[in-house]
């Protein structure tokens, strides 16, 4: 007799645990407006990207097309996977001195691991992390970018 009672209570307990589980899912089934899905391309305008989000390396330019990069190459040294190449040129200053300046700051987005070490190491704060994250392109060569805009100059008073 005892075994029959335990047999029945075992079944009832088991069924009870199943019903508790079903209650949890039912709660969500009957509140379908609480869904967590985000419909990505449609919600683009309302999408919140954190300010610190590391999407790509960019070099901000001011309205006079000036940047802060001196071409020192510290970011190139700090990059763990060789995504940055610095090509410098020599300029003559007004006093007739030779001065090193950036010619091309080449950035291979395809190789970048977004570790932030270049931005952290930059002595003049010339490069920062941008929040753009939609980088898909059809041609891999488009992932190699030149960060300094054509014809740009270094800002007044930035020294390395």
């Amino acid at each position, binding site marked *: 007799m005892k075994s029959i009672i335990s047999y029945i209570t075992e079944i009832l307990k088991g069924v009870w645990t199943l019903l508790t*589980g079903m209650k949890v*899912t039912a709660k*969500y*089934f009957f509140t379908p407006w609480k869904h967590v*899905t985000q419909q990505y391309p449609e919600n683009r305008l309302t999408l919140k990207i954190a300010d610190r989000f590391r999407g790509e390396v960019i070099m901000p330019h001011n309205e006079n097309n000036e940047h802060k990069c001196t071409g020192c190459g510290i970011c190139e040294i700090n990059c763990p996977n060789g995504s940055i190449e610095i090509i410098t040129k020599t300029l003559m200053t007004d006093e007739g001195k030779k001065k090193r300046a950036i010619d091309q700051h080449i950035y291979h987005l395809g190789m970048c691991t977004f570790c932030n070490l270049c931005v952290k190491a930059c002595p003049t704060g010339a490069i920062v992390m941008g929040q753009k994250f939609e980088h898909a392109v059809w041609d891999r060569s488009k992932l190699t970018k030149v960060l300094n805009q054509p014809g740009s100059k270094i800002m007044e008073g930035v020294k390395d």
Partner: protein
Amino acid sequence: MAFNIYDFTTLTKSIHEGLSSQLSPTATLAIEWTIVGLAYLLFVALFGLFLVYAERKVCAAFQQRMGPMRVGPWGLLQTIADFIKLLMKELITPRDADKFLYNLAPFIVIIVSFLVISVIPFAPGLSTFDFDIGIFFVTAVSSVGVIGILLAGWSSNNKYSLIGAMRSGAQIVSYELSVGLSLITMIILAETMQISGIVEGQREMWFIFKGHIPAVIAFLVFIIAGTAETNRGPFDLAEAESELTAGFHTEYSGIKFAFFFLAEYINLFIVAAMATTVFLGGWMPLHFGDFEGFNQIMDLIPGLFWFFFKVLGVIFLMMWFKWTFPRLRVDQILNLEWKYLLPINLFNILLMAAVVLFGLHF
């Protein structure tokens, strides 16, 4: 030709009379067969597509998602797009597969499903066969489907498929027993095995209410065993994606896979339709004893709606199971059948016999 949404007998009769007045009896029969066959094909295809869509939306709602939203408004055309994709996919046959059996298996599975649908009464006048051993026919034919699954697993020449098929074999053969016994419980109450007779017997009160305790137990057993029969929900051992990748249909692609897929959903419909017919009064509206006004309002709703309303309710219950519970292990699934469902069922038959014998039902 008067069209009565409450009773399709006039419609079918007028078609029959119209045809036989023009043609010879053989030709009439041939045309009628074609019409019925096409009607079933169309129904299965559309209802299958609908069920796939419904399953996706239901499971999405359980999981706090939105489900398909891209193809068509609210993703309504998603399953159609998927079906077109399946039609266009390459049919792959493994090199060392048993070609004949490999190609035969999906057809066995789908033909069996069609056979069982033929006895289900959708509404007054809307059923094809009405044997005096209808229930017996359902249990007999539906157990043939397992042969298709076994063949699929064996002939694919894939170890995962074979394990899946063997699990499925053990499972379906065991659960046949519970399905059969729970139906027998209700036959004691209905006193007939003819499906139209069973539905007719529920005009005043559905059997699940009429038979109270034993009927409710039989209903629960039937739903559990039926879920196991369809290889769904917590009993999807034969597919068990996290263990056997896709089980018995691992090697199938394109339309052959679609057959298995469709058969699964038709079987879902069959189990729900049988539960509806035997326990929930088929197309009969809900009646409560002496509440005349209430009963008359219920009568206004056509039988076809009642039938599908109840079927979808049962299907929802089975989907709810599937999206809540983890999967059982193969020995546990057999334990559940032989140690729990079968003894309960046998006891329940005695209980039902006593209830009927002493007239304790309502």
